[in-house]
């Protein structure tokens, strides 16, 4: 158990990061920090994809390198997850942009970024 945790330490880190991200979304009162939490959550997923892309295989090779030229016992990165992460990063940026635009509008209207203050202000209206 302990050994497998050490050999797969990237996965452990990724899931710690996931937890941190979702904790920020839930616990932080600040809307911007919530959005940062969402970003952290997404980044953890990107890292998850990247870290599983390494295939410890003897007969595998990166598509651009001819198979004969590869010495045995190397880690080969499958390009597919990398492409996925690239796409997902773009999606994440778009989401952050829209989220920040909404937060700017909320701040302009209510003059606060804190969730609890926002609730009070809205209840008063």
């Amino acid at each position: 158990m302990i050994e497998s945790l050490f050999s797969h330490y990237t996965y452990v880190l990724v899931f710690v990061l996931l937890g941190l991200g979702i904790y920020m979304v839930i616990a932080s009162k600040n809307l911007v920090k919530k959005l940062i939490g969402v970003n952290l959550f997404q980044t953890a997923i990107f890292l998850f994809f990247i870290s599983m892309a390494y295939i410890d295989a003897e007969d595998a090779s990166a598509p651009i390198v001819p198979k004969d030229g590869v010495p045995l016992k190397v880690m080969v990165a499958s390009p597919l997850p990398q492409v996925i992460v690239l796409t997902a990063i773009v999606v994440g940026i778009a989401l952050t942009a829209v989220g920040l635009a909404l937060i700017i509008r909320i701040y302009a209207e209510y003059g606060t970024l804190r969730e609890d203050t926002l609730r009070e202000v809205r209840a008063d209206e």
Partner: protein
Amino acid sequence: MSSVDLLLPLLIAVPILAATLPIALGLWVDRTGWPVAALTTSALFAGAIALASVVSTRGEAVTHTLGDYPRTYGIELVADQFSILIVLLVTAVATGVLVYTRQGGPRGNTFYTAYLLLTAGLLGISLTGDVFNLFVFLEITSLATYALVASGDGPEAAVASLKYLILGTIAASMYLIGVAFVFMATGTLNMLELAEAIPGAESQTLLHTGVAFIVVGFAVKVAQWPLHTWQPSAYQQAPDGVTPLIAALVSTASAYAFGRLLVTVFGVEYLTAMPNAAAVVLTIGCVSVLAGTILAVIQTEVKRMLAYSSVSQFGLVIAAYGVVIAGSSETAFIGAAIHLVGHGLVKAGLFLGVALVARSYDARTVDEYAGLAKSRPIVAGAIAVLLLSLVGVPPGVGFVGKWYIALGAVQSELWPVAAVIFLSTMLTLAYAARLLEKMYFTPPARADPLHAPAPVATDGGNAGSDESDAEPTRDEPGAAIAAIRGDRSAAPVSTGMVAIVVLAAIGAVALGFSGGTIAELLDPFLTKVIN
């Protein structure tokens, strides 16, 4: 081999490209958005019909491989009998809602850009055959939806939209984690290849984890209790012209995607063998059905009431998926498909009707609907037909969907599910009847010129003696009431707006009669995925 498969990428690419036109042309000409959107969605609808006729006559799926990459790592677009139903619904509703927005707004070129992007995303969800591509289209759809919700008047819309954004992003990310686990176990992202690889995959733990994440992600996206919290405020705060589109299509497309993953990717047999899978899906569905209906009954705002009603109706669909898994029931799956399409059409019509009433009659709460049948007989009639169809009164489409789902539950001997469906019908009647009673049997209690324009909850019971006062309004509806109430929000209503609501009502009934046709259409698909 004809070039009919080119329709698939065109259905997705054309709206995305057309989405740039309103902004680009808007630099020179004002008001280009509506014509561009109308032209595009009509073309899409025509394309969808052409595709549907090919798929139904050929009896097998039309596929297109993007860029001719092998499907193991390329992206494949697939139109089969199940997806074509959703494509037809999406294009039809997107075209229909435009009839309302021409006068009803929101206006502006950027609105139509978001509108077309949303349509593209929804068509992408329906047509893609790749699980990661599905994530991208889910996010395109969500992004456009956030923008559309936020375009509502007032700052509340921005708050609702941000709430939706945070929850929606987390949900989509959950789905992405699920995809990551599945990819780790199988090494492919294509739905059909996954279907082959999953049963024999080495690490079943990875797959089970993946299924768990996917179920949670979609439970948020489809707005299942208790993860539905984004949905009512988003529906309520969105502009009146946007709510029909969002309510009818966004969650429907997500629910479709969930069904697709369950039956095509994981396969019924595999999920049946998986411990607790059926129980979890059934529980999510049944609890949502009950919670959604009860929450709907206690709402006073009509839009919010209908939003909670969506929670329960999608609960029915998810419960039907549960029945499919638990009992390998083809009947329940047909029910889920019919209910998806039927609910989409009914909700689009209802929200259009509600928008119309809010515009011309300035009524937003259930109490304010009093006497609607007298001053707006056509709209009230259409809303009544749609409501009854939602409840499940034959021959409305709601009845057919529920009938198949309940039949499937009974055949699979899942008595609690059958009981929940029956109970939910009674409760649906409770909130539908409340609105019907206000519209038809409570005279308008607003002949008082001093009546404040602010939405004060008027007690219908006291107005019983106002029958004589209410009479004159029959001759000059709408305008007279608007003049009496002295409010400025009563705006003219075009014939097209009324016609589209009536059309939705007729469609809901017509679809009720075509349940057998849909079942026949789905038959080849079902024989492939079940058994």
